[in-house]
């Protein structure tokens, strides 16, 4: 399958300082307002979060060619897999599995390239030191990246899902819509929590971040069962793959979205609950990884060195 990726094109709009975002920077607000009370610190962090998310939210539609490619490319990959299933006369529900998996794959690619590698790209463009000297929590920056990324990717994934579903006549069930929406949101939070962990860890690996992101594409497509029910891997292998929230999340979505699924690993409700636990775990992990990265920044002073 064609790689979806390098390719992790760094989002250009993000190369600009956060001061370009509405509301100005936290430092600016401090100069204006002065104090450092808990309330103003919270407001500053929320502003930073929104500032970081803003470039991704507005960037969603600013470059229409991105929108086109990000919607059409996943469908192209999916089309090939649909024809594979059709060539071996698989039940038609597998077409739905593939379309859904292809659409959801956009989130994984975004977590790798838009979250995991972003601090590395920020470092390359001289942006990272601005984040470190800003009087805000680094979690606000990561939270903004995650929120903006979710919005941005959802537009793409929805486009790919609609396009693929229309092209191949996929039918969905709607009687479990509530749990489906909850399961989807919980999966996204857990997934982007993992992306926040990646952001710190990938940065420590310097330019190997590129290879790490590449490495985690196809193997994760395999382990998470993007193009086949994950149960086919065997229970324990699939359970192990469950550390990536998309494994159980996608399995739950398939059970809830298709009439004759019957190939789930665990009951959908259980999978959603496990992902809720993973969401907490990864958010805490992200805070710890950030603190670790900051310690290294102070001790070794290499986080702003480019081309390493």
């Amino acid at each position, binding site marked *: 399958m064609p790689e979806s990726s390098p390719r992790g*094109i760094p989002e250009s709009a993000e190369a600009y300082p956060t001061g370009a975002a509405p509301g100005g920077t936290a430092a600016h607000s401090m100069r204006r307002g002065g104090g450092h009370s808990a309330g103003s610190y919270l407001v500053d962090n929320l502003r930073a979060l929104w500032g970081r998310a803003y470039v991704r939210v507005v960037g969603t539609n600013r470059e229409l060619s*991105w929108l086109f490619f990000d919607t059409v490319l996943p469908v192209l*990959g999916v*089309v090939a897999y649909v024809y*594979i*299933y059709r060539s071996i006369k698989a039940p038609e529900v*597998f077409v739905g599995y593939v379309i859904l998996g292809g659409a959801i794959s956009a989130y994984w690619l975004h977590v790798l390239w838009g979250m995991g590698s972003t601090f590395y790209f920020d470092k390359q463009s001289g942006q990272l030191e601005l984040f470190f000297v800003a009087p805000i929590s680094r979690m606000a920056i990561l939270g903004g990246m995650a929120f903006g990324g979710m919005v941005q990717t959802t537009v793409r994934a929805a486009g790919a899902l609609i396009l693929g579903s229309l092209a191949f006549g996929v039918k969905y069930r709607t009687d479990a819509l509530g749990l489906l929406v909850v399961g989807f949101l919980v999966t996204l939070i857990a997934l982007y929590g993992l992306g926040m962990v990646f952001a710190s860890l990938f940065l420590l690996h310097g330019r190997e971040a590129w290879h790490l992101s590449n490495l985690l594409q196809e*193997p994760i497509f*395999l382990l998470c069962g*993007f193009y086949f029910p994950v149960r086919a891997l065997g229970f324990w292998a699939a359970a192990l793959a469950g550390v990536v929230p998309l494994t159980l999340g996608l399995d739950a979505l398939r059970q809830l979205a298709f009439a004759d699924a019957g190939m789930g690993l665990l009951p959908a409700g259980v999978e959603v609950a496990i992902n809720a636990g993973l969401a907490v775990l990864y958010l805490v992990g992200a805070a710890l990884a950030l603190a670790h990265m900051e310690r290294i920044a102070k001790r070794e002073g290499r986080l702003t060195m480019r081309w390493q």
Partner: protein
Amino acid sequence: MAVKTTGSSPSSGAGSRDGRRASDSHLLRGAGGWHVLRQAGGWHVLRTGAWLGWQIGSNWTDPFLFAVYSIFRPVAQGLILVFMYLVISRDALSSPMFAHVYLGNAFFAFVGQVMMGVSWCILEDREFFRTFRYIYILPGRLQWYITGRAAAGAAIGALSVVILLVFGRLFLGLPLHLARVNWPYFLPVLLLGVVACAAMGMALAGVYLISARHGGAYSEAVAGLFYVLAGVVYPIDILPAWVQPVSRVLPLTWWVEGLRRACLGHGMAASLAWASDGMILAILLGTAVLLVLVCLAVLVGCERVARQRGLLDVATFH
């Protein structure tokens, strides 16, 4: 937002190129037979490009990570197909069709490494490493450098293919035997396909010379189209009737069919069964030569536009 740097005005861009030519001519006339020496310079650039491509693709990382990356990634790609088959039928892996699918998918690694790698190197050198301006003023034409990068991509692609085929033979029991491969047929077919991939990479490299950083998705789109249209993982007969003529004019369709015949003894698509092995090779040769000519023209044309507009060393941040 484009950030223009030195020598990026239309006149200076063209001027520097002309100046380079004048300088080349002067030096080479002094040494005698400038055409031959220019080719020699081209060879040096090609070799350096290949070395650089290999360094970026492999050596700029931890050896363990590279080994894991080189093995797991292609194997995972192959295993996705395996599980797609297994989930439908336990016996599916022993069907002749699966061997064709697996083989086509394995050799498609060349498209990813050569075509996408070659085109991506322009963006990489220009936008990320900011070295393109220095590469461009090297003696020897840009095509040599790109060909060198293609050679590195082909080496890495070959590594992926070998890993996938060995894995398929050892663990999936695919009927792949070195003794049964029709080598005199396989080698020219393989070479022509790699050349076609490199040519398409050159055309895309030309497009990247005149486009911003976000254009990196073009090569993915082209690769994705080939994956769908060339019958890499299914016979083209299953495509809608109106798409099949498009498939038949693509060199990669004939390339994959030729590789299947060379390695497995017979092809996959019923609609290509009318063509003998020799005809497949001839059609592949014809379409590949045509493609090379068109792609070189695209590269040269885009290079000219880039020089005229001063885009060669622009970091677009976009």
